[in-house]
């Protein structure tokens, strides 16, 4: 039995805030694209984000971790089975329960795009799939060596910003995400998000076009740079986040100003429907199960209206139904609809050429036809 009590306007607002974010599960795709010992810092970057994401609640089954090389077991590592993110070895981000889904040479452009779009062969195990749905918030983190408009994978191939934008569009059309947060820490990282055109994507990059992302600090005992600056300060920022914190995206945009990062981090929010100030960090980095305790009964209005019966008359009125335009993309991103190019029909061209030939042979004599037939 429901007990009806009077409801405040504030209660109603508080109820609707409960449903504000619209997502029900979280996924993370974390990719490190470089191999070789001197790219230790890229693996450390990815593992730091992995660590934060796991700490804030996303389970391994919802994380696709792709590491192009194994630093922890590299022969040159003086501290085997560890990957440190801070000098003086304060923080071992490798930990003891890392689950790497794509390792070594499996980290390729093709595999990355297949993971995003879901076009994997049936034999792929579940741990290697991104099984997101239309209520998933996905965090995508890329790091490695990049340039203006491309990101280098494994020293042998590149992914371009156009390919990435198209992959995200495929994800949108297949309803594989609710909202997407894209973070990239490479040189000239802002070029990678320039071409996005699908809605509900927010993007952050560590440097603008023409700038290099710099590494943070070398560790003399290990002999390599341990982390990149942007991810280092982002990790510091994330260490203060706990599952119940209410920090929003505007604070993440302020991470690593130019004085600390030397490069200028950038972000892009025009494709995102919500205001970044209302987006919590834990919407993407954590997997928060919303629980609100109440002693009151709350009347949720019925969102579905019943259709009224038409008065019966002899004729059946058949209306032609069509799908409403659910995706007014051009309105969302204020783009002019693309003009479809007009081609004359094929038969017309054939007829035109036949006419020209006939006129030619008429004028210059039929004997030239011999040369053709």
């Amino acid at each position: 039995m429901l007990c009806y009590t009077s409801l405040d306007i504030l209660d109603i607002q508080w109820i609707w805030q409960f449903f504000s974010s619209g997502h029900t599960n979280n996924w993370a795709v974390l990719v490190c694209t470089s191999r070789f010992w001197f790219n230790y810092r890229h693996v450390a970057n990815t593992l730091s984000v992995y660590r934060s994401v796991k700490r804030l609640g996303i389970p391994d089954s919802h994380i696709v971790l792709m590491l192009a090389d194994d630093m922890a077991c590299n022969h040159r590592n003086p501290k085997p089975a560890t990957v440190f993110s801070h000098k003086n070895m304060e923080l071992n981000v490798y930990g003891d329960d890392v689950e790497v889904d794509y390792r070594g040479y499996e980290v390729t452009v093709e595999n990355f795009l297949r993971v995003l779009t879901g076009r994997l062969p049936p034999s792929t195990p579940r741990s290697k799939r991104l099984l997101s749905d239309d209520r998933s918030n996905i965090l995508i983190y890329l790091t490695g060596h990049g340039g203006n408009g491309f990101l280098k994978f494994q020293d042998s191939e590149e992914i371009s910003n156009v390919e990435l934008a198209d992959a995200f569009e495929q994800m949108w059309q297949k309803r594989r995400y609710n909202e997407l947060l894209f973070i990239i820490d490479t040189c000239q990282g802002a070029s990678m998000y320039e071409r996005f055109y699908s809605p509900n994507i927010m993007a952050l990059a560590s440097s603008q076009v023409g700038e290099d992302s710099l590494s943070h600090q070398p560790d003399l005992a290990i002999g390599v740079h341990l982390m990149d600056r942007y991810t280092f300060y982002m990790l510091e920022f994330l260490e203060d986040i706990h599952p119940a914190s209410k920090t929003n995206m505007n604070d993440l945009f302020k991470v690593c100003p130019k004085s600390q990062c030397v490069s200028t981090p950038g972000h892009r929010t025009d494709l995102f429907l919500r205001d970044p100030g209302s987006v919590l960090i834990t919407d993407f980095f954590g997997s928060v199960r919303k629980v609100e305790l109440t002693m009151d009964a709350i009347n949720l209005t019925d969102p579905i209206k019943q259709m009224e019966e038409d008065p019966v008359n002899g004729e059946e009125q058949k209306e032609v139904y069509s799908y409403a335009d659910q995706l007014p993309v051009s309105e969302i991103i204020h783009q002019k609809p693309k003009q479809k190019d007009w081609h004359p029909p094929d038969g017309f061209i054939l007829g035109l050429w036949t006419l020209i030939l006939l006129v030619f042979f008429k004028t210059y004599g039929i004997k030239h036809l011999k040369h053709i037939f």
Partner: protein
Amino acid sequence: MGLLSDPNRRRALISMLTRLNAPICVVCYFAGVAWFMGLAFEPFTLRTYMSENAMGSTMVEERFPAGERALATGREFAAHKKKVGGMPVDWLVKNMQDRGLEVFTQSFSRTLPFPDENKERYIVKGTNVYGILRAPRAPRTEALVLSAPCSPGDNNNQAVGLLLGLAQYFRNQIYWAKDIIFLVNEHDLIGMQAWLEGYHHTNTTGMSWSPLQGRGGSIQAALSLELSSDVITSLDLVLEGLNGQLPNLDLANLFYAFCQKIGVLCTIQGKLQRNDWDSVSGYNHAVQTMMLMVMKQASGRPWGDHGLFLRYHIEAATIKGVNSFRQYKTDATTIGRLLEGMYRKLNNLLERLHQSYFFYLMPSLSHFVSIGYYMPAFGLLAVILLLRALDLWVQLNTPPSTTEDGVADIDQVRHTPGVLSVLTPLVISHLTGVALYALPIRFQETAVEHFPVSETEAVVLTAIAIYTAGLALPHNTHRYYIVCVCGTEQGWRVLKLVAVLYLAVLLGCTALINFSLGFILALTLVPLAAFVTPHVPKVLSAFILVILSPACTLLFSVFFFQELQDMPVSFQDGWLLYLSVISQGILDHSLYGSLVYPLIALLVYPCWLLFWNILFWK
């Protein structure tokens, strides 16, 4: 019409070429020399920088602690060496095994073609001892080498001690991704050659050695250590190897970077770097350093034990500790740390060093001149030869002007001698060259029987005798000409054309492989090739030709080299040094395959003889 196909324009071009030939040649020569001298001027050089990404900067932490213990080991080594009277093989084997290395020995023996003054016997026998430190977790595919020579007397004891100390320290680290081979070789270069041949399963020089029982994978880099005192004031880097080959510049950059980080004084060619490049004395200093490198490279002999590695595409350098009169002294621990840092960085390599230059000159340790900058100097000299060849070709093909009475000498017009006419001088010159190459060693016993000299002197004096005998050739060979071209104007022109082109090709090929040798030969041979004709004053030209011949160039180079090292010698000592240089050249050729002696004897000397022939053309 094009420039070359239009006959009028062609004639104009040709006439300009013949008119201005001599002035252009002179200008080119001085431009080439000026360009070369300008290479040492600091604004024209580039600062050295690390090109290899994997090696990165010098960010490692060096923690080698045991310098004193290394010196004590060195003293023990010296004592055992004196007791055994040679290489203390058993002591070395036991010592290396105690430090946890896999130890192997290799015995070798070599019959020298003639006993040189160092060895004083025909057969050299020795043993190499080496220990392999296996990488703890890596497969045995790559290796690094650290070597120290076992020298007689009191030399290099500290080097062996430091090598053993480093071996013990390295054994306790787990970050090695490559095997490290610690090698102590006997008889310097001969032992090193035996070891390298055994390691790579080649036998190019006819040495006999026992096969190596233990191997470590393909060698990526090697360092050779020469340290003869407990404290040093500076470290000298030696780069020049066999046949003028140099290691990758990144190895020198690595050494320099660590010298700066640790704060050790580092030199190249024994000369310290100066900062006042805009003053005359600063420029002189840079020129001296560069000329020393040019001289050493031109000699074609390896100036350290590292020189033989380069042939196998292994980047190697020698580090010499120098103890001179300076206030600031460096101890063995610091040297150990420098080597530790270098080896940790070499450990990070994923491929062989190939990103930086293989052909360069260094006026100082922090500046270098790459091949693209120094080759034009040689190019300007080679252009002189080509201009001369063009001039001769034009002269050969122009019909001679008619004589006063309008009757052209038909014989002279028709009788353009073909190339076959120059065959005789060519063949005879080259036979003389072959004699110069082969006879000295072959007839050393006969020489020793008839003259009161040692074998070494016999060889050298025979060589000089044959060289001088070649000067008498033109007077004797004229009667052997196949086609009688004696007396014709065209005959010597054809010979000179062939000789000039031959010299151009020869010098070009030499300069590509060993720029210094090619340039020095070009400096002396190009002027004489350009100006020599039968019509210049005979006595003066003969004198100039002898002065500019390869043998005299070598003599002057010996004196110049001593001057550059601030150790000028008197004429007597210089002459003895010259004789020893020749004997060393012959010995290097048979021991390690150095190409300088065969080049000079078989190719450059016959070419010079052709010009001598032209001078005395009747």
